[in-house]
Each structure stands twice: as structure tokens, then as C-alpha cells.
């Protein structure tokens, strides 16, 4: 049931916002509803969206709460079907009625129009700003995967919707799971109380080998090929530096309790040059300047046969913190090593969201993740253009990567950016 009618994203978003304003529910569930199951809709039913739906159910199981998955939406019917079949293994809480399954570019509208309380936004990142805006406008609580935008207009959309969510006490959690991971939480507490002395700098890395790809097919349109192979197109992924490295930059912002003032960056495309790899780069390196003359080195690489490193180092006058998924340590005067047990952070983030929705500590991570996303976009801008980019320049940038019309058909691929020769 793929809908082929062209959709202009700006127009339909306004429409959803207008109609939803009337029926928006208050952010915190009414007392009588707190014992009821939270109803969750999933927008983007790939591996991560479906995985997040499972995490939401696992969170409910861990807290003896009740959650039901009630709606599924994806551009592609087989994705919806795969998620539906997989989630049905969980019994009633994972069983979704066929009438609540939606496909096509408008699938998100169908999901949002159901009686769900929460939506999981896990499509390729380029679609996120419009989906987030529509979800908040309709009074939904949101779990959204990172990154939350691929360009500055998208970041501004997310910031505006996050502020709207704040006013209406709608809960928002982003898929930067390090923020919900015990070893990171304990390390940051120590960093912020001064165990490193004065924090003076940071280094952060997402260096890995190659990632998945979906080979373009001649019998598919440009648009379909690009969405299926979305990592390799900046309008969908933001480039790999935005798609993955946002995690590490978010940790640096967290440690510094600030966003950068400016950055210079370099990057290119050396080992991943075949057509199937679209137009994105395979390596970036960046130098961020933070307020107070503090600096952060950031590096992101996806090249086969190279050394992996996904890690952050926070440097202080009296020590250094070494952080990565599952481990954290401080070397220096106040040495420490995380030795506790921690819950799967991909489940913990849903526990924290569900607690917020049910009236616990209110969480709205919308502004914070929009800012971290913009930091990663700054790297791409600086590297693609070969120019220093300030925070203000990035925030006010007008480059809009989204195609004007979303439909299966021609959509010429962006060229590989050559620094100094582009916008």
C-alpha cells in the first residue's frame, strides 16, 4: 500500500500541526491512566526501530509497568511486516492490528493519528525533524533515535518542537544511550565535581571499518535506491560523521557543559569510492574550540582494514577520563574505575522515558540532542566547504538537503563535496 502521491513536507507538517493543536493531550498522564498500558507507535521499522520497540517492552517488564506496541509505520511494507512478525513473539503487548500498520512516505501520519501515547522515531535521520514536529504537535511523547537532523533547518525545526514539548510537558528522550549508561553517569558526576581538576580538553573518536550497504538496483528509482542505502546520502544520514560520531561529540558537550564556538575540519573519500557508496566521505578530523579556550579533537573514520576506536577522553588539569560503552575510568590524582553492574542502556533509556511520562522526573532531551547534532553537522560543513564554521553560522545556515518532493522517482545524487569548490 505504498502511497505514490507527492508530498511537500512543509505543507503537510503545517496541516498536522494545525489539526493536532486542538486535540493535544496534557503531557503527564492523568492519575487514572498511570496504571494503564502506555501505547507506543513505531515510525521507522528497520533494525533499530524494531529493536527500540523491543527495548520499550523490556523496559516495562523490568519496571513491572505496562506497555503495548499499537502502531507501526515504514516507507516499505516488508519492513512493517518484519517488525509486526518479530514483535508478535512478545504476545499481546507486541501484537499490532493490521489497521494500525502504515506504509509509504505518509506512514508517520497514520501512526500519529492512532491513539498511541508515545512514538518511537527511527527512520533515516533526514526525516526526523518533520516527524518530531508532527508528533509533538499531536501531543505525543517521543523516543527519537540520533541524529535528529541532517542540516541546520532541520535542527531549528527540532529546537522549536522541543521547546513546544517543554511547554506542554511532553517527554522526549533521544537515542544517545550513553546519557543513560551507568558508567558514563558516574564518570560525569566525578568530572563535574572536579575529579579531573579543571577540564581543559577532550579527544573523541568513532573510527571503525566499513558498514552495511544496499547495492543500488536498476529496477528501482533513485529515491528508492537512496532510501534503502540511506547511510551513503547526506540528505538522509547527514554523512557518517553525523550519523555515528554525534554520540561522541554529545559526550564531550556533556563533559564540558557547553557547545563549541567554532570548528575547523578536514575529510575526504579514499577507500569507499564505488558508486554504491553514494557521495559521502569515509573520514573526517575536526578541531573544536569551546568557550574558555578549551579544545576538542574529534575523528570519525569508516575504512576497511583500519584500527577501530570508539571512545572519548576528557582531559583535565589533574587527570584524564577514558570513556567507552561499558567502561569508564579516571587516571590521575583521583583515580577511579567503574566496577558496577549496569543495565543495558538501550533499555534504560526507555525506563527513564516511561518514568517521565508516568510523572517521574521530567525528561526532555530535545534541545540537547539538537545541539549535539548541530555540532556533528558543523564538522561536515567545515570539511565539505574547507572553511571554519562558527556556532552561529551553523545554526543560521540555510542549506536544506531534503528533496523538494518525496516520491519514488528521479532524485539526482549530490556530488562528492570538494573542499574549496562548493558553497
Amino acid at each position, binding site marked *: 500500500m505504498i502511497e505514490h502521491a507527492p508530498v511537500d513536507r512543509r505543507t503537510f507538517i503545517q496541516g498536522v500541526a494545525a489539526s493536532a493543536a486542538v486535540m493535544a493531550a496534557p503531557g503527564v498522564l492523568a492519575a487514572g491512566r498511570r496504571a494503564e498500558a502506555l501505547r507506543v507507535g513505531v515510525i521507522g521499522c528497520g*533494525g*533499530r526501530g*524494531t*529493536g*527500540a*520497540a*523491543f*527495548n520499550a517492552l523490556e523496559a516495562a517488564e523490568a519496571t513491572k509497568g505496562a506497555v503495548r506496541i499499537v502502531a507501526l509505520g515504514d516507507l516499505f511494507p516488508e519492513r512493517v511486516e518484519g*517488525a509486526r512478525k*518479530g514483535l508478535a513473539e512478545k504476545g499481546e503487548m507486541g501484537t499490532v492490528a493490521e489497521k494500525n500498520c502504515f506504509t509509504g512516505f505518509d506512514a508517520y501520519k497514520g501512526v500519529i493519528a492512532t491513539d498511541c501515547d508515545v512514538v518511537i522515531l527511527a527512520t533515516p535521520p533526514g526525516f526526523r525533524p518533520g516527524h518530531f514536529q508532527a508528533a509533538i504537535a499531536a501531543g505525543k511523547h517521543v523516543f527519537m533515535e540520533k541524529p535528529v537532523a541532517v542540516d541546520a533547518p532541520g535542527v531549528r525545526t527540532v529546537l522549536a518542537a522541543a521547546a513546544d514539548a517543554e511547554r506542554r510537558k511532553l517527554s522526549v528522550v533521544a537515542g544517545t*544511550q550513553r546519557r543513560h549508561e551507568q558508567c558514563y553517569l558516574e564518570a560525569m558526576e566525578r568530572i563535574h565535581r572536579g575529579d579531573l581538576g579543571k577540564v581543559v580538553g577532550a579527544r573523541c*573518536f*568513532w*573510527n*571503525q*571499518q*566499513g*558498514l*552495511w550497504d544496499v547495492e543500488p538496483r536498476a529496477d528501482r528509482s533513485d529515491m528508492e535506491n537512496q532510501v534503502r542505502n540511506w547511510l551513503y546520502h547526506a540528505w538522509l544520514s547527514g554523512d557518517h560523521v553525523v550519523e555515528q560520531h554525534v554520540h561522541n561529540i554529545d559526550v564531550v558537550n556533556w563533559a564540558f557543559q557547553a557547545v563549541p564556538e567554532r570548528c575547523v575540519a578536514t575529510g575526504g573519500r579514499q577507500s569507499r569510492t564505488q558508486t554504491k557508496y553514494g557521495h559521502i566521505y569515509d573520514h573526517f578530523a575536526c578541531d573544536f574550540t569551546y568557550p574558555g579556550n578549551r579544545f576538542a579533537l574529534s575523528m570519525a573514520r569508516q575504512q*576497511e*582494514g*583500519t*584500527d*577501530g*576506536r*570508539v*571512545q572519548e577522553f576528557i582531559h583535565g588539569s589533574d587527570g584524564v577520563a577514558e570513556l*567507552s*560503552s*561499558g*567502561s569508564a*575510568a579516571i587516571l590521575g590524582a583521583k583515580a577511579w574505575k567503574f566496577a558496577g553492574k549496569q543495565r*543495558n*542502556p*538501550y533499555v534504560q533509556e526507555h525506563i527513564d522515558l516511561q518514568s517521565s511520562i508516568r510523572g517521574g522526573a521530567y525528561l526532555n532531551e530535545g534541545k540537547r540532542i539538537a545541539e549535539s547534532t548541530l555540532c556533528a553537522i558543523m564538522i561536515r560543513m567545515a570539511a565539505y566547504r574547507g572553511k571554519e564554521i562558527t556556532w552561529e553560522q551553523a545554526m543560521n545556515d540555510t542549506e536544506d538537503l531534503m528533496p523538494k518532493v518525496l516520491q519514488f522517482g528521479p532524485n539526482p545524487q549530490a556530488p562528492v563535496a570538494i573542499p574549496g569548490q562548493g558553497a
Partner: protein
Amino acid sequence: MRSTLLASTVLACAGWGFGVPSNSTVSAVEAATKPSTTPEARKEPIAGTTLEIELVKVPGSADGSIKPLWVARTETLWDWQDICIYKRDQKDGASGNAAADACTRPTKPYTAADRGFGHGGFPAVSISFDSAKAFCEWLSAKTGRRYRLPTVAERQHLCARSGITADTMKDHAWTFENAKDATRKAGSLKADASGLHDLYGNVREWCVAPDGTGVLMGGGYEDKASEIACDTALPNTEDWNASDPQFPKSIWWLADGPWAGFRIVCEE
């Protein structure tokens, strides 16, 4: 001068540095437990690459229940694993052989599966039982020889012959006490009496239980030396991949198994 030796070996062997000079298989063993006879060893090239896998012949058991076996001198290196996953034997249009091309290969991981511990010359980690078996099948197809994971009984046989004791473990095994929270270059400690490196430490190794399921045996870099029993088998558990955020979870990579690796054996 161990570090110098390592460095030069790495260069000479294009990243395949497990610390044994390429023209000698004896020195590491001599440095270890001085067995009465020199273990028989051979090198198996991986066609289409410059890599070789070094195998040591281990005699069978006295009662004949364990047959003589060729055992990889080191745990499986990323260098070998990369060839399989990224099809690095097919560079520049060159094809592997048809049987190898037809094998199911593990998918590319979503993150740095090497955990930043080190890559070239380091043991592969985060490896699932299915992934370890798939590597053996690919390598068998590629080379025409039968490679597989050791059985639990074979593993216990290797342990019994190792000559390593609680007192000498530190000379042979990367453990909690000396590894500093990461794997170390394969073969950078003394070999055991059979000529094998890292049997006790560095990464836990997949073996096959009598019912065909996978078990991890031996210790890893996170384990305390006092708690490593070479022949203890840990049954495969979903806990080792609990935090894979995808559905379905990967059958090839263990999100929570940074110490899961393997060693291959060859019957011929």
C-alpha cells in the same frame, strides 16, 4: 628485545605480527617450557593475500580418543577475519575460488568490533559461535583443507599438555593482572609446551560441546589468573549479546562479548 623483534616481524609479515620470526618456529617454544622434542609446525597461506596461518602439530592422547591435530599457533587474528568479512582476497577484481565465494560470511559490524584494543596482529573479539564456525567453513572452502573449532575434549587435551601451572601462568597468559583491560598482540607471551600461544589468556576461545553447541573455554584479558581454569566451559548465553540494539540481533557479533574469540584446528 622482545618489542624490537615484534616490530620488525610485523613489518615483514604485512601486519601479521604474532612475534615469532618467520624462519623459525622454535625460539618461542625454547623460551617457554623446553619440550623434549621440537613441535612440528607448518604454514598455510591464504590464497589471494600475503597472509599465512601457522599450525602446530599436537600429538593425540595416549588412549587414542584424541587424534593428532594441527592447531593454530595463535588465536584467530583480525587480519584473517578481515579477509573473510570484507572479501579482501578479491581485491582488484580478482576472484576467490567459487566454493569460498559461495560461503555465508559474517556481516560487517555496526561499530568497532575490535573495541579499540588493537587490530593488526591482535586476536579477533566480539565473535559469536556462528561467526567462528562460518570462518572455519570459509577457510576450509578457500584452502581445500578441513578447518574447524576444537571440541571440548580436544581443548582439554591441549590444556593437559600445555605444561602451564598456576606459578607460570603469568609468563603465558594475558589476564586481569597484566593485560590492562584490553587484548594484547597475539603470541606476545611465551608459548606453551605444545608451541601454542595464549591458550590460557587474552581471549576466551569457542569450542564445540558434545551436543554441538558452542562453549567458551580458557580465560580472557578481564579474567583473574587465579580464576582461569583452562578446561572450564562457559555455555553460550543471550547475555553476551543483550545490548545489541538491532532487531533481529546480530548472529555474528556479540555486543557484550569483548573477550569472545577462537582458535582453529585442522585435521590434515
